[in-house]
């Protein structure tokens, strides 16, 4: 129990250090852009594919239930609500946690156990700012972009199914879809995704920076980064949805 609280304290201290160092010059612009590329561009293909398939499959699965009530015309708006309010940020976060979170944990863990972080420190470079701040900023800023894009691809997948069955035009589909979507839904999508991105970045960097015991420690850092960030994303989803539904709607 004591170890758990000590770890929580270490995480809080780590987050505090992030805020202290993120807004104080010198800024690591080049490394931040590099990480934007690593996190964003390299995740685009999988996000595109997953988003499209999610939209297509969910529409297909929902069709039969709605057809029983003759309500297939609700499919566009139903899919828009499901994808934009829930699926896009959540699925994007899970994919990024698996792909980027594990990568961050393993990369920093490996750098830690092979003394590369200390080497950076003695090269007059602040490793926290160079490695940690840049990665957390990248995951926090890029996740909303990826989630929005996944939402768009999901809607395209949904459109494909609707078009094949009802020959609805793209304009009519999106008009019907966004009839039930408000700006609040878009704001919440962006906010939630940013929170998930921050969580994934912090979890990956923290576990990487804490790695020890050689290659075993690196594997553990990568694994813990994925498991803990996925768990935290679900907990945050529950809290944010409750707050939004109770106080903003």
């Amino acid at each position, binding site marked *: 129990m004591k170890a758990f609280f000590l770890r929580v304290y270490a995480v809080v201290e780590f987050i505090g250090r992030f805020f202290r160092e993120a807004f104080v010059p010198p800024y690591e612009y080049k490394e931040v852009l590099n990480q934007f590329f690593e996190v964003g561009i390299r995740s685009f293909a999988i996000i595109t594919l997953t988003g499209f398939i999610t939209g297509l499959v969910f529409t297909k699965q929902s069709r039969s239930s709605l057809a029983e009530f003759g309500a297939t015309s609700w499919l566009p708006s139903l899919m828009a609500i499901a994808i934009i309010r829930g699926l896009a940020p959540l699925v994007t976060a899970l994919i990024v946690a698996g792909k980027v979170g594990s990568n961050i944990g393993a990369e920093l863990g490996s750098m830690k156990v*092979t*003394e590369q972080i200390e080497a950076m420190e003695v090269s007059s*470079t602040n490793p926290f700012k160079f490695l940690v701040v840049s990665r957390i900023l990248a995951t926090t800023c890029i996740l909303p972009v990826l989630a929005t894009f996944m939402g768009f691809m999901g809607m395209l997948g949904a459109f494909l199914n609707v078009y094949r069955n009802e020959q609805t035009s793209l304009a009519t589909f999106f008009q019907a879809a966004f009839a039930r979507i408000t700006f609040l839904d878009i704001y919440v999508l962006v906010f939630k995704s940013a929170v998930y991105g921050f969580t994934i970045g912090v979890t990956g960097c923290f576990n990487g920076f804490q790695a020890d015991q050689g290659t075993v420690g690196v594997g553990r850092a990568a694994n813990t980064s994925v498991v803990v960030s996925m768990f935290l994303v679900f907990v945050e989803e529950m809290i944010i949805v409750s707050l939004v539904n109770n106080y903003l709607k």
Partner: protein
Amino acid sequence: MDREKPVIVLRNVHKSFGNLEVLKGIDLDVFKGENVVVLGRSGSGKSVLIKIIAGLLKPDKGSVRVLGEEIDRLNPRELQALRSKIGFSFQSSALYDGMNVRANLEFPLVRNRRDLTRKDIDQAVAKVLEDVGLSQTIDQMPSQLSGGQKKRIGIARTLILQPEIMLYDEPTAGLDPVTSVDINELIREVQQLYSTSAVIITHDLTCARSTGDRLIMLSEGRFLRQGSFGEVFESADPKIRDFYNYNFITKT
């Protein structure tokens, strides 16, 4: 060597990890142009000692003065400035896996000397690579280098900032005897070419004899004896005799 000018001064340095007291009141002076070898068995506190000198660890008690600066009193920016004058060669070489040799060498330079042009940086990289005899590896990744080449590139990366002090952590660990001799010669060349002072941590007596102007035997957190190779190992202290005999037997 200039006996009037100590570049590293440690006084009564203590360091513990939990209940384990690793350093128990270390006093050390390293003079300008001098190579000091700290010898000792694994776990005797050698690596902790140079990490304290580099400011990577803080002593629990005592003072550490490097190039006239009290390390404990420096703010992070001042410590960074001081570190640009200290080269640290790690036991594992600590090359950045994701960067090729050129990027590894450029890294400290572009971050510390923002006034340099692309041409200046290329020239500096070419010079240090030539000094360590590895010009042909410039575009290779660390994974493509041998253990000895990694050590040399690690040393080259520290030399690019033209440090006044070099700290070597087990420079010959894990290398075959021939490559170890090459590294020992390189350490001597660096001392002459770059006029550096150095602290060399090792348990390899060949390395100690070839690279050190002065040897210090560290055991259980205390200095047992210091002097030239002959002066240290003429001691009848059983710990020093054991260390010498162990090296002698394992080498033969």
